[in-house]
């Protein structure tokens, strides 16, 4: 298929079969033992280490790295999992350059942090490859907790609750568990079905049943759950997305970026996914970057991310942006879409340059058009309807993830506070579980 000028419009099979394989392989392959030892040797075992403070789940990073250095990666994995049961996924998807590795004192000393993320992967892979689940459940308490959503927040909460001996029922709207680990994260960050393998491994704790394709609001209500269970945890993420709301946004091949990635992650063969020759992605976050990069990896010829503010305003990290440009994605900043043009299917996107004026983002009046066979919209996700009190656009939660409704906790992307990151969701799920556990144990 690769011969000749790339065809305009949307088309599958733009690349040779082996190219797909290479393009969607592990972005950062695992360290081998020697590499792990060299990398671990660089850790200074800092006192009250800044990397630990920077980790939303507060993994004891110096300890686990020392355990790798002394050739006990299994012990290192236990150290990691005791704080973060999704330490395997986090090792692959955390923007470490904005978290632990940014705080590493060797970043300050030499501009080269200890490779914490990759070391974490080395340790967790070692234990998971041995198919060892490092925890045993406490004696059953007879208490029942409903967890809505099997994303990182829900899984983390469920595991911690099960560990304490409670019986957990997870309900999830989707056919597979994992939340965005399964349906959202870039394919090259978590190849080889890792998300499902991790869920299976996590469930080995016992005491957790998962009910797939059971949606809150459709198949049950919050009232019902509060009646049937001793506590309810909501980890429903952000199920809606913002629309462009400009002329032409209903044209064919204008698609939500999250849906596109979902389709990509679930595809049996990446070659089957039709992709445009000229792709435009609108947005400035991780979703925009992932949609753009994966468009390139599927064979799109030109891919442009257009973001309405300056580049330093993009929420995708510098490393993510570099990765995108390295993969041949163009970044265009300070421009907002005003209309999409085409005849049935989209052909062009019209933008207006923007500037800051009196603290406001305003159009300059100067316009330009980009050719586009396909447009991905990545301008933010929204919370589904829960009836709970909100703080801004998310469920209002206090300490321990308590919502304003008795017996209902929430955490992860759907709850107020914290960044929209996998690791934050894990931390909030875990902490809410501890709070629920304290309540169920008659703590108050």
């Amino acid at each position, binding site marked *: 298929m690769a011969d000749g000028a790339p065809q305009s419009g949307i088309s599958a099979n733009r690349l040779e079969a082996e190219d797909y394989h290479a393009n969607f392989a592990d972005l950062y392959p695992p360290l081998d033992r*020697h590499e792990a030892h060299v990398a671990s040797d660089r850790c200074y075992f800092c006192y009250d280490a800044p990397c630990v403070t920077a980790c939303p789940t507060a993994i004891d990073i*110096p*300890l686990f790295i*020392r355990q790798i250095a*002394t050739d*006990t990666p299994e012990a290192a994995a236990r*150290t990691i999992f005791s704080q973060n049961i999704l330490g395997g996924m986090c090792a692959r998807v955390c923007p470490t350059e904005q978290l632990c590795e940014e705080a590493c004192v060797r970043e300050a000393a030499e501009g080269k942090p200890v490779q914490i993320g990759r070391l974490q992967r080395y340790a967790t892979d070692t234990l998971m490859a041995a198919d060892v689940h490092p925890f045993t459940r406490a004696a059953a308490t007879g208490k029942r907790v409903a967890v809505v959503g099997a994303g990182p927040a829900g899984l983390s909460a469920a595991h911690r609750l099960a560990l304490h001996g409670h019986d957990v029922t997870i309900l999830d709207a989707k056919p597979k568990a994992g939340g965005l680990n399964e349906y959202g994260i870039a394919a090259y960050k978590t190849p080889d079905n890792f998300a499902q393998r991790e869920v299976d491994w996590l469930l080995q704790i016992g005491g957790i049943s998962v009910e797939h394709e059971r949606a809150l609001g459709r198949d049950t209500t919050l009232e019902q759950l509060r009646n049937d269970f001793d506590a309810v945890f909501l980890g429903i993420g952000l199920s809606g997305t913002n629309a462009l709301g400009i002329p032409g946004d209903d044209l064919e091949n204008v698609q939500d970026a999250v849906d596109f990635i979902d389709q990509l992650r679930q595809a049996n063969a990446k070659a089957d996914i039709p992709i445009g020759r000229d792709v435009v992605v609108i947005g400035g976050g991780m979703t925009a970057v992932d949609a753009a990069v994966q468009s390139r990896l599927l064979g799109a010829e030109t891919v442009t991310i257009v973001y309405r503010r300056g580049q330093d305003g993009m929420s995708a990290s510098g490393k993510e942006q570099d990765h995108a440009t390295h993969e041949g994605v163009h970044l265009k900043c300070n421009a907002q879409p005003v209309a999409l043009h085409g005849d049935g299917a989209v052909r062009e996107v019209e933008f207006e340059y923007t500037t800051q004026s009196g603290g406001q983002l305003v159009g300059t009046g100067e316009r330009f058009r980009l050719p586009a066979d396909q447009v991905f919209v990545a301008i933010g996700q929204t919370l589904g309807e829960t009836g709970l009190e909100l703080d801004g656009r998310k469920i209002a939660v206090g300490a321990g993830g308590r919502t304003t409704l008795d017996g209902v906790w929430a955490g992860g992307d759907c709850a107020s506070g914290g960044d929209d990151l996998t690791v934050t969701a894990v931390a909030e799920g875990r902490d809410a579980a501890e709070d629920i556990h304290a309540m169920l144990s008659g703590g108050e």
Partner: protein
Amino acid sequence: MADLSINFAGIKSPNPFWLASAPPTDKEYNVRRAFDAGWGGVVWKTLGLDPHVVNVNGPRYGAIYGADRRLLGLNNIELITDRPLQTNLDEIKAVKRDYPDRAMVVSLMVPCDEKSWKTILPMVEETGADGVELNFGCPHGMSERGMGSAVGQVPEYIEMVTRWVKQNTRMPCIVKLTPNITDIRKPAEAAHRGGADAVSLINTINSITSVNLDLFAPEPTIDGKGAHGGYCGPAVKPIALNMVAEIARNPVTADLPISGIGGITTWRDAAEFIALGAGSVQVCTAAMTYGFKIVEEMISGLGQWMDEKGHTNIDAITGRAVPNCSDWQNLNLNYVTKARIDQDLCISCGRCFAACEDTSHQAISMSADRTFEVIDEECVACNLCVNVCPVEGCITMEEMKPGEVDPRTGRTVEAEPADWTTHPNNPASVAAE
């Protein structure tokens, strides 16, 4: 997990990891934090009689480093505690009361007369401490006053003082030995004769870590002058391991419990001391370099290794390597190995070649494309290439099977062991049966 608790010469501790008598155990604040961090026991910083000693007010330490400024050896000129005796005793009592399950051993150093020992021992007993350790090891300052290693270097003194101590207290008595002698078995035997319940070793080794070439003075330099200090840290571990093994192998002291000290930094170091006969281990420099928290790695690592190997408790591994500590003359000369370079792991740095070509047996070849290979006809299996290779596991020693011909000697490898004692070149050899 395996049971890490120990009963060392009657002193119980939840794990074998103790802090050695030194700054980490110098006062209540430190020891409480150490126990909170998970240490199984401490040997309190050495007490003496009042008036208490004083320390220098300039630098006490010198260091040597490995790559990346990793501290490998520490040299110190600190003396015993420089705080009043009663202050220490009060603190020991308070800590022991609050941490009854931890081992509290008190290190002592008083002048070489029975009266001094009779004075201090009841005071220590009164604190509720679990035992005493006699510091016969400090190699600087105190030795100039006839204490520390000045006692530890004279076996008769060790025996005499140990006997006084045993006669004047019910507490278990550990004798801490100095490595600054020629044969470590002699002071250990003397301690044994004197009735010691255990020995601990090593204390620090006489050393000068570096010389300031502007001042022409040893470091650490105090107003232009320096004095030798005591050396410790990872660099001394091999010396300590050998001394521990010597005592464990000696039939006279074979049953004497040993507390192993010297460069212990990780669980593996500790396991090695234990395998050579130590029933507990003590740590100083590693804690001073990295903080109390390192004990977490020691506990998890030792526990994991024991679980993996099916060792259920510390007794099951103590001394397990002692029977394999032999003498040169008993090593099997029919055991033949050859170096093997794993070409997949080799990064072509050429260090093995430099080592073998320049300083050993010219048994490694180098091709134009930097492929390095062992020449079996020349390889004497010295292990130097293995030791200098930067990639662990890249060069290994492969054992030749009986029946194979060693291309270097042309001799067939024999299945039966044979050592120097029966070798024809040995003038004193006894003919094999």
